[in-house]
């Protein structure tokens, strides 16, 4: 009868609301639990965040003149960080591909951490873009139907669309997995698997679109090279997992989180191949510029060798090369990557190397010398460093809190008191005592 159905619908809605609020409350509880080092870590991040907010408010009031960007170098530290972080976000897929495409079980359980990392990375990307635009109060101009998005002509418009879509996909999958695990259920395969498989081309997509942002500009020969998109993917696939490998080892040490050694070694091996590709593509680029020796060589020369007495970036260029080669060596030799010290050095080297060459190493040489031959040597101001540190602190804070919630839940150590309806036939897990 109609009346009964209506009653059922409201009952289900109420039930769902109860379960969701239980999940939310559970999360809050988890976040608040922690030992001394946790508290110190949070406080440290809090200080950075407050400093960043203060620096940014000065920037909003006085304008982007507080950065070192000028007409000659109109993009700088913020956009460099944005580009690097899009790569990190795309790297969640490095875990996904072996897990789902090759059905490699040891990695399956940890895919969610890649997704959480992707969510934090995209959040940081969006923040970096917000602090970089001259009129943050006009951000809504990008959102149809309030504003006007110049799609498909502008690649930035594409970036807005794909980044937000990728963010949503990861958010849905991660929330769903955790929510179900919290209530003692396994995630719904028909929801998760398609979305996760979709996230593979999406991850490649977001980083390709970001590469196309630069690639499509005929005015900037350093960027206007077909190699840019493949090179972005290659460097992304090393940098993201580098963070995750370190995080997994930390979790393994401080919680009952389990991850097989072979999973970590496999990821390191995949990173080695990605780094090889990255180095190869850089080498190909360098060959083309130096051998053909056209006017376009100027930008590559400025980066690696300096130009006309301007050498600010040269040490960074060679540091990046050294770090990348070191990381490649450490990961490609199986006996080396199995040694924990060397593995972690490799992770740090990858992260630092790719951070340099994809952040400042991409943006600044692309814009120096400028289109009319002028060299303005850019390096960030204190304001930019403070704002960037604040944004990274927000990202780290988010990731910390997410891990604080996700690890206990996925390990089954933390469950909600509310029972889920057993409509799908799977047995519920009773709530553990102690909460």
């Amino acid at each position: 009868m109609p009346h009964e159905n209506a009653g059922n619908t409201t009952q289900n809605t109420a039930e769902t609301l109860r379960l969701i609020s239980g999940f939310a409350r559970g999360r809050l509880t988890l976040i608040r639990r922690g030992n001394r080092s946790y508290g110190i870590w949070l406080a440290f991040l809090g200080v950075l965040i407050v400093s960043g907010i203060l620096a940014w408010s000065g920037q909003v009031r006085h304008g982007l003149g507080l950065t070192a960007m000028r007409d000659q170098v109109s993009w700088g530290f913020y956009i460099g960080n944005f580009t690097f972080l899009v790569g990190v976000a795309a790297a969640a897929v490095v875990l996904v591909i072996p897990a789902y495409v090759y059905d490699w079980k040891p990695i399956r359980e940890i895919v969610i951490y890649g997704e959480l990392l992707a969510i934090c990375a995209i959040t940081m990307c969006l923040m970096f873009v917000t602090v970089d635009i001259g009129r943050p109060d006009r951000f809504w101009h990008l959102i149809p139907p309030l504003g006007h998005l110049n799609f498909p002509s502008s690649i930035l418009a594409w970036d807005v669309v794909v980044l937000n879509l990728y963010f949503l996909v990861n958010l849905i999958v991660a929330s769903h997995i955790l929510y179900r695990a919290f209530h003692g259920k396994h995630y719904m395969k028909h929801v998760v698997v398609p979305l996760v498989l979709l996230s593979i081309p999406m991850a490649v997509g977001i980083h390709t679109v970001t590469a196309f942002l630069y690639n499509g500009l005929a005015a900037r020969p350093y960027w206007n090279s077909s190699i840019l998109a493949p090179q972005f993917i290659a460097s992304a696939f090393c940098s993201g997992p580098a963070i995750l490998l370190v995080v997994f080892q930390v979790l393994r040490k401080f919680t009952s989180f389990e991850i097989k050694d072979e999973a970590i070694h496999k990821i390191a091996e995949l990173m080695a191949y990605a780094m090889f590709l990255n180095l190869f593509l850089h080498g190909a680029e360098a060959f083309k510029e130096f051998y053909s020796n056209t006017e376009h060589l100027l930008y590559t020369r400025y980066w690696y060798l300096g130009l006309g007495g301007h050498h600010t970036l040269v040490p960074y260029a060679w540091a990046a090369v050294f770090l990348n080669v070191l990381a490649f060596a450490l990961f490609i030799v199986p006996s080396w990557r199995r040694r924990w010290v060397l593995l972690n050095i490799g992770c740090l080297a990858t992260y630092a190397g790719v951070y340099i060459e994809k952040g400042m190493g991409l943006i600044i040489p692309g814009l120096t010398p400028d289109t009319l031959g002028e060299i303005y040597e850019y390096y960030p101001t204190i304001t930019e460093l403070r704002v960037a540190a604040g944004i990274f602190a927000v990202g780290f804070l988010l990731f910390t809190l997410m891990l604080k919630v996700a690890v206990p839940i996925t390990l089954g150590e933390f469950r909600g008191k509310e029972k889920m309806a057993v409509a799908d036939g799977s047995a519920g897990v009773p709530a553990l005592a102690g909460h």
Partner: protein
Amino acid sequence: METEIDDPKFTRRMFNTGATAAGLSFIMTACGPKRLYEAPQALLRQRIQEMEEQYKENLDVNVKVSDAQPIPGVQFAYALDLSRCIGCRRCVYACVDENNQSRDPQIHWIKVFSMDKEKGVDFTNADPYYHPETVPEDGHFYIPVACQQCENPPCVKVCPTGATWKEKDGIVVIDYDWCIGCRYCMAACPYGARHFNWTTPSIPKEQINTNTHYLGNRPRPQGVVEKCTFCIQRTRAGRYPACVEVCPVGARKFGNLLDRNSEIRYIIEHKRVLVLKEELNTVPKFFYFYAT
């Protein structure tokens, strides 16, 4: 409590309120402020009136904002005689005065490059900061560069919000109220023609030019991009741009490409003409030529 959630009227009320709220906000934003690109005449006039009132309030100056539309049958083009330019920079400062460019921080829409006659047009060895006692210097020639008003403008292609576009008479314009200051257009421009307001622009009150155009030289706010507009406030009223009139050696020419009898057509048909960075296929409407 149980009754509230179970009550069908509750959910229906929630839904109705939610739907109404969503509908209202959609209508409000859809009818609300949008970019000036497609603004109908009546709305444009109203927005311009608001602009004038705001200028009166903020700058304490009576700025007149024109909404002159493109003249039909006109495609503006510019020609600059490289055999005559002596690099005196009077065009730079005439432009600054005419177009309300910020004095501090300094914004110049025109940049003059000193080049070596032996090397020819070569931007890698050009110097915009020359300051000899007198010009022209021996063995040097001069190239002023500003917005080329391209026929295939890369800046228009990349703007994420559509705040810059090419008008029917060929001038590439910016809606200063819609620009979000992302500076993608500045990365895309091959001629360094676009400039950003890194902080609040400042002009001494007595130097503000009050004859402005809503897409041209009206005073700009912080955080938006600006550039040469072929003095849209003058050219749509039939006059020459300020730089053309001030040049003491007559190196600058301006006119309508579609007029067979214009100076521009004469130059293109009779003189050695070149454009900058031709291989980028931007098809600039700013021609450099040698009259001799």
